[in-house]
């Protein structure tokens, strides 16, 4: 992917703490994906095998909340390398379902799920990203330019927002397309 003319906008999509439903909805653009790929180079995405987040991205769609230290690092890298960052779906906007753990203590979650649960507990140190005390919406970690709500946002919402951004226009979704949930 991502090897055509320089005039195309550079689009990235990222999957942080979420269920991938927003990306499924992106794929549900169906045949419009072909139209989208005529407008953009997809330079980073869970649906493309690219290991490193590239420089000079025009628009980045970020699905998912920030749940651990790795998500925070990634969010900061995205911000540094993207002109416009989109909170893509409810988890990025509010914390949503991952954020439902926020009323619990992290130590209690880890011990109940791993130490007391079936199977071996993960190593206490080494390698694994550290869970944050509270799941954070993306805009509490980095500045966000556009919010695209929905769980998941419908393909129509995605299409309207992304095509507006690619044209350099402000994203103005009608009220019925701005609902969370």
């Amino acid at each position, binding site marked *: 992917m991502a090897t055509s003319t320089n005039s195309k906008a550079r689009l990235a999509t990222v999957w942080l703490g979420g269920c991938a439903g927003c990306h499924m909805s992106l794929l549900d653009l169906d045949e419009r994906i072909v139209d989208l790929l005529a407008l953009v180079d997809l330079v980073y995405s869970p649906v493309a095998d690219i290991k490193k987040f590239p420089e000079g991205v025009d628009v980045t769609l970020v699905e998912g909340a920030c749940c651990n230290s790795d998500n925070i690092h990634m969010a900061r890298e995205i911000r540094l390398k993207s002109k416009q960052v989109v909170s893509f779906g409810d988890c990025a906007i509010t914390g949503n379902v991952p954020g439902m753990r926020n009323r619990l203590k992290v130590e209690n979650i880890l011990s109940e799920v791993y130490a007391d649960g079936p199977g071996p507990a993960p190593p206490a140190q080494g390698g694994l990203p550290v869970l944050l005390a*509270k799941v954070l919406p993306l805009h509490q970690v980095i500045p966000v330019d556009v919010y695209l709500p929905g769980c998941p946002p419908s393909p129509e919402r995605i299409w309207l927002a992304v095509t507006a951004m690619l044209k350099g226009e402000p994203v103005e979704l009608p009220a019925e397309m701005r609902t969370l949930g």
Partner: protein
Amino acid sequence: MSVVTLTIDDKLVSAPANTSLLSSIQEQGIDIPTLCHLKGLSERGGCRLCVVEMEGNPRLFASCVTPVAEGMVVRTNTAKLLKYRQMMIELLMAQRNHVCAVCVQNGHCELQTLAAKLGVTSVRYDYMCPDLPMDASHERYVIDHNRCILCARCIRVCDEVEGAHTLDMGGRGVQSRVIAGMNQPWGTSRSCTGCGKCVQVCPTGALFKKGSSAAEMVKQHDFLTWILDGREKKIWHWR
């Protein structure tokens, strides 16, 4: 009945004295956001979404609890009001755990709809994420404090229309909770008639029918007009 004349959004209107500013505004066909207000119940002035600007006074007035007055000049839709209304919605969202995606009332919620309508795209405040219980002790209904915005519609309809006054507000400030009976499990309250009016008037997913799953709870509160018009005006809306 004496009549007063006032100016709403540059238009001269007349209204019966001792009526609320909100009713005059709505009579003009102006779409003003409300949450705690519900036609047929007493006014509470709790959510502050119906605030208006009043000429000659720097503070905002909740129109539902402000009576009309002669010569009053009000504005119902300004940039300043929108800013405050957005803040109020965000504060409501931040105070409890409103997780629309998994809520019984997803798609039918007045808070969710108003947030979208007023252009609330994200919440600027830290979420409080309180550890709140649900009470499923009632045989037919559930109260989920995570979704409650303390509008007190349920309390008012229980007292003013059903006449049971099973529900009330316990605690103070951020600790406030809708309680049943003497702050006991709802199912053990002997005054509750199980009528379900509280459930039907609740604007969010805080009160719902047992067995409802995500997005399944749809409410209707036109029964309030049928009951109150019959009781007070002897007008019967048979359908």
